[in-house]
């Protein structure tokens, strides 16, 4: 690794000033579990590391519309949060499948987003709950739906002077009719061959009011199967309906073959697992 300067600002404003001044030459470090690997491989050679662990981005609070999650929260802290488990259980499920305990104790929810891996475990459940993200700079802040943040594998809309500070989960999207599945070669310490989250909100008549089917590792960016979602809205849950939606989801994904799985396998498993996740989503109704 190439030596870099290391600064540990104690306020978010100080961190934003540093990012403003140094731009792309500076990298923000949270848990470091991806960044350190990329620095070691010389993929990234920042001249300055801005450590966020003392910048007060690790709280969870409820506002009138959102559950607001600080970007520096570790996967373990997300996993232990009972409010997330109760309101947004698919996020909790994804945390359980995330690497192993020592990595979960360091890796952060914000890091998992900014890293922009198509296989990121937390991104499909976050998108399924219509998560929004807050990007701050010394000049202000902007908010966007997480689903629009990714522009390619490893690429996002984050500007050189911005820091991801918060993930906002709309309370109106909370649902226990949700399910996360990670397909990988081991139960732990594995990168997804495919991961997906389904989330349904049912109305009083038991009809599907909102449907989300979000998949990772099947395209350059995590994606919604929107035509499949549309087939569900206004309908009553049934095996036949879910089977048809799963077949539609298969038509929408654009997987590639890589070291973890072939394109054909991913296509096949998209159909199998979307159906399974939808069935599990309503298993407790």
């Amino acid at each position, binding site marked *: 690794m190439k030596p870099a300067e*290391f600064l540990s600002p104690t306020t978010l404003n100080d961190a934003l000033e540093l990012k403003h001044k140094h731009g792309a030459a500076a990298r923000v470090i949270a848990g470091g579990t991806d960044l350190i690997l990329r620095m070691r491989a010389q993929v990234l050679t920042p001249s300055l*590391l801005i450590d966020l662990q003392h910048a007060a981005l690790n709280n969870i609070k409820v506002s009138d519309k959102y559950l607001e999650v600080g970007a520096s929260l570790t996967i373990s802290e997300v996993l232990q949060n009972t409010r997330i488990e109760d309101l947004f259980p698919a996020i909790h499920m994804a945390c359980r499948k995330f690497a192993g*305990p020592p990595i979960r104790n360091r890796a952060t929810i914000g890091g998992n987003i900014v890293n922009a891996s198509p296989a990121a475990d937390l991104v499909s459940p976050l998108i399924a709950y219509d998560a929004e993200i807050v990007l701050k700079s010394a000049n202000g802040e902007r908010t966007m739906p997480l689903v629009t943040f990714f522009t390619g594998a490893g690429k996002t809309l984050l500007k050189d002077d911005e820091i991801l500070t918060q993930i906002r989960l709309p309370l109106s999207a909370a649902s226990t009719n949700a399910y996360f599945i990670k397909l990988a070669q081991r139960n732990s*310490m594995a990168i997804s061959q495919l991961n997906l989250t389904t989330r349904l909100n049912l109305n009083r008549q038991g009809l599907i009011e909102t449907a989300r089917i979000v998949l990772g590792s099947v395209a350059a960016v995590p994606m919604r199967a929107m035509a499949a979602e549309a087939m569900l809205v206004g309908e009553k849950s049934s095996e036949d309906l879910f089977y048809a939606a799963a077949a539609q989801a298969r038509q929408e994904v654009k997987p590639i073959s890589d070291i973890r799985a072939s394109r054909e396998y991913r296509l096949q498993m998209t159909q199998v697992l979307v159906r399974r996740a939808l069935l599990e989503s309503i298993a407790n109704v």
Partner: protein
Amino acid sequence: MFDLEIEVNGKQEQVSVEADTTLLYLLRDKLGLTGSKDGCRSGDCGACVVLLDGKTVNACMVLAPQANGASVMTVEGLAKDGELHPLQRCFSESWAFQCGFCTGGMLMSCYALLKSNSNPTRDEIRAAIAGNFCRCTGYQALVTAVEQAAAELRANNV
């Protein structure tokens, strides 16, 4: 260079390192604590697991400056006054290791488990060591060793 203060196994240390030095390098090469092993250098194998402020981490995946002001416990901190920790003794008595390369990290993950759960099930033990790979002994004897150590610790605390 980055000057940092760190408590390691109860002892306050002052060290100067390059800013992108890992905690593992600091422990092994600066402080001579070689019980934490340099395995995969990518956070995959768990041979370098230590406790950082009470939580298990891969020491190869923490930059030393990130541990500034923190408290670290390594496998060398388990034995007290020359007497093995019950976990260490049970590992030995149950033949829970052969080559020993994974053992330091395994012990730290299991130590962290027993601090928060004095009576873990076999599944809970397996979940606690999900980030620790053993490539020669396997896991059955190890899980048994942790069960025995937990029982001993419970008996001693009564």
